[in-house]
């Protein structure tokens, strides 16, 4: 297998509360962070987790994937969760988790 460049994802974790921030800091273990970019250590997937506030998604977590394990799409397609209160997206190209894409 040829030498490959590691996946790069946008990185951001909110400080909404101390508890949530402390938990979400675990995402820093998925790869080295510099500024708003993370270089993934063990995954090719970028992820985004959003809370929907007044109809607008607000990113809680942007990072290299830790828990999804699979990301077939090139762009970060929105999937709604918990009665449309949250959005999840995952994707497999560099910095693909900066923008949510919609629909099929």
């Amino acid at each position, binding site marked *: 297998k040829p030498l490959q460049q590691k996946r790069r994802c946008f990185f951001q974790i909110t400080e909404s509360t101390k508890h*949530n921030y402390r938990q979400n800091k675990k995402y820093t273990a998925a790869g080295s962070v510099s500024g708003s970019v993370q270089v993934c250590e063990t995954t090719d997937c970028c992820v985004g987790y959003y809370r929907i506030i007044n109809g607008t998604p607000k990113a809680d977590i942007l990072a290299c994937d*830790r*828990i999804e394990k699979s990301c077939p799409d090139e762009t970060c397609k929105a*999937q709604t969760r*918990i009665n449309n*209160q949250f959005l999840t997206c995952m994707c497999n190209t560099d910095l693909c988790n900066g923008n949510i894409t919609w629909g099929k």
Partner: protein
Amino acid sequence: RKLRATRADPSSSVRGSVCGLRALTVSLTKLLVGPSSANINNCHGSCAFPLTNGNNHAILLNSHIESGNADERSPCCVPVAYEALEVVDWNADGTFISIKPDAVARECGCR
């Protein structure tokens, strides 16, 4: 330290597969923000004589049932050891990584 198991009816040896672990992938989208699915495994199979993975209570219970007390709850094949599952959970303030204990079955037994 286990009790010896005895049986009332030696002809009842025809049975399904013995109690054991099987993969089970479940959707998590109704409960959690991520992941969308996970393999939590499940336990399936017979807990009839001879109990290969029962404890003393299950051995005594089986002996009682095989002595003619068919109305009693018989031993059930259930998880007896688990692993935790890392997920993205949610609260009023947003989403956060969380470790859910006892979420993935790792071993089965007759209880």
